[in-house]
């Protein structure tokens, strides 16, 4: 028997398969994901595959502490620089054969820094989305039913939601200091309320539908209604919330880094790269490539993420209504 999911989702997929913009955005997102995962294969000082003196095959690029060793032979990444290696012969050199995206004022390879910056963004995106969703999910279910706890939570959420998220982020970072963990914590703190609200409102919407009342009349208990009737109807909303939260986290990470509140240097992040070049551009010895490439990457990632979300949103919903407003 075909079940609803295969049927409905294959319908959606069929619709999306013909949509070139959607396919393009999906491919771009995959490209960025691959870039983050396989960064050491593209750019780095350690070989991808190497035959060591004792005859065994090694993969030093994926080894966090490969050490220095002489290999019989080795295949190196295309770009033989990692994010912090300095080329002392080229300071602020424009894009060229040796440095695809040029170098910064202290001789670091911009190409390598941009690629490793993807990692930072993805990490922050994944962790903040994961925790925001988990917290938001449970609290969303609590506020879907009327109770005193729900009222308290709703009050807290409305306080959190009225504060500009960025202000919240800055406060948390200033209190806790700059680090990857603190950026994630700050994003989760400013985001869980939004997720909880969305889940709570959608639950409320489904609870008010007559099929839930039919289940109550049959004698179903609340938790059975929750599992049988609510969760299955929330899957798409959940997926889109994940994507929207992911896109929010990335934006926040970049903005924080730009303001110098993000991940601690020298770990590269696109926001930091743009900020560093900003100083240069303002002081007159403009090195346009330092800002240009991270900006382009950021723009491509954002546009494709937004197209992806929008297309999914519409495909799931034949009435052309957005499931989740950003």
């Amino acid at each position, binding site marked *: 028997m075909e079940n609803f999911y295969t049927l409905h989702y294959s319908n959606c997929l069929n619709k999306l398969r013909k949509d070139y913009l959607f396919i393009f955005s999906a491919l771009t997102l995959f490209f960025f994901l691959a870039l983050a995962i396989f960064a050491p294969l593209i750019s780095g000082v350690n070989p991808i595959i190497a035959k060591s003196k004792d005859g065994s095959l090694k993969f030093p690029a994926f080894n966090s502490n490969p050490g220095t060793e002489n290999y019989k032979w080795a295949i190196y990444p295309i770009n033989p620089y990692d994010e912090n290696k300095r080329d002392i012969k080229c300071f602020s050199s424009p894009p060229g054969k040796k440095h695809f995206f040029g170098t910064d004022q202290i001789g670091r390879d911009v190409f390598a820094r941009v690629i490793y910056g993807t990692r930072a963004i993805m990490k922050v995106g994944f962790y903040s989305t994961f925790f925001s969703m988990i917290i938001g999910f449970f609290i969303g279910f609590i506020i879907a039913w009327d109770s005193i706890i729900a009222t308290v939570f709703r009050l807290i959420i409305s306080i959190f939601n009225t504060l500009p998220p960025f202000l919240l982020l800055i406060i948390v970072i200033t209190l806790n200091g700059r680090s990857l963990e603190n950026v994630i914590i700050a994003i989760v703190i400013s985001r869980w309320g939004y997720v909880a609200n969305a889940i709570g409102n959608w639950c409320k919407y489904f609870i008010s539908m007559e099929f839930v*009342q*039919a289940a109550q*009349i*049959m004698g*179903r208990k609340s938790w059975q209604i929750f599992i049988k009737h609510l969760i299955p109807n929330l899957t798409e909303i959940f997926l889109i919330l994940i994507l929207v939260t992911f896109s929010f986290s990335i934006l926040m990470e970049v903005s924080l880094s730009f303001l110098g509140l993000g991940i601690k240097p020298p770990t590269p992040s696109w926001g930091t790269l743009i900020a560093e070049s900003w100083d240069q551009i303002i002081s007159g010895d403009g090195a346009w490539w330092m800002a240009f490439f991270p900006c382009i990457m950021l723009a491509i990632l954002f546009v494709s993420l937004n197209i992806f979300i929008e297309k999914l949103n519409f495909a799931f919903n034949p009435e052309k209504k957005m499931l989740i407003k950003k």
Partner: protein
Amino acid sequence: MEEIKKPGVDLITEKLNRLEGKIDRIYKFFEETDEENLLTVKDLKMYFPVFGGVFSTQVATVKAVDGVSFKVKKGETIGVVGESGCGKTTLGRAIIGLYKPTAGKVIFNGQTGAVDLARLDRGEFKPYRKDIQMIFQDPYASLNPRMSVGEIIREPMDIHNPEMSEREKLDKVKWLLNKCGLREEQSARYPHEFSGGQRQRVGIARALATNPEIIIADEPVSALDVSIQAQVINLMMDLQEEFGLTYIFIAHDLAIVKHISTRIAVMYLGNLVEIGDADEVYNNAKHPYSRALLSAVPQPDPERKDKNRIILEGDVPTPLNKPSGCSFRTRCPIAKSECAAKIPELKDTGNGHMVACPFWKTEF
């Protein structure tokens, strides 16, 4: 003859007396419910608190249903009519236990004896849930889009008939689909593949799955095309005949109510203003409100006396702020000063035709 007096006789008499008192009370309870009435609604009230202000305190009360009493005999159809917002849906939901009534009794006299549903808590209510079912207004919102029609129809059986085997349940689903004018193989399909009328048939099949005695239908056809309305109504009437069902049929379309009902109850602002045999009420309404309501129906019915259309003045007051006394007095063409003092009770005007207006004989 010498009277034999044993110790303890007094005690026994006393106990017997007390028992008699108890039996009396129980008897009275049954008398109220009398055997032939499957459902007795007594002075049912459903108030909703309205919260507001800074601290979310209760600022007002919506008297959605304000003292409704009527009896339902086995096998009959009571049509409940009234304007939008007069509390028809709330009445149905309070009877079926979706809302806990503020006051009043809902005495259900099923096979297991009489019981006041309004007093039961959730767990105690469960065994009676299979006896009272509901058909909903919106054929699109009343079926879970993520369940196949087969799963939807068997869900009540999963809850109330755990003794049935998988095979029996599937067979019953097929049987119910056939009874409701759908095909067996459609049980694997999902609600979005059906038309509104077909979905409503699925809703009816689901309501029938536990062999209920009473079905409350809350505007079951008002969301459907006119041509399909008749099919669904006829299906409901056929099923009633076959299974001896009892309906409480809520609607605002008087022609449909007249067609399906044996009795009609007219509601205004949370109160019943008139109840009686369908033909009586339809052709010979007595309460000023019902007369106005019926005069508004364009009907090519030769039996009906030709009446001029009565146009009511003013708006319906909100149930938040009901007028004192007769709630209809702000719009009633024959309102008198006495009407503000006391809420008129339903009085029998002959043949069980009850009217809640002491001045119903006044012409206007």
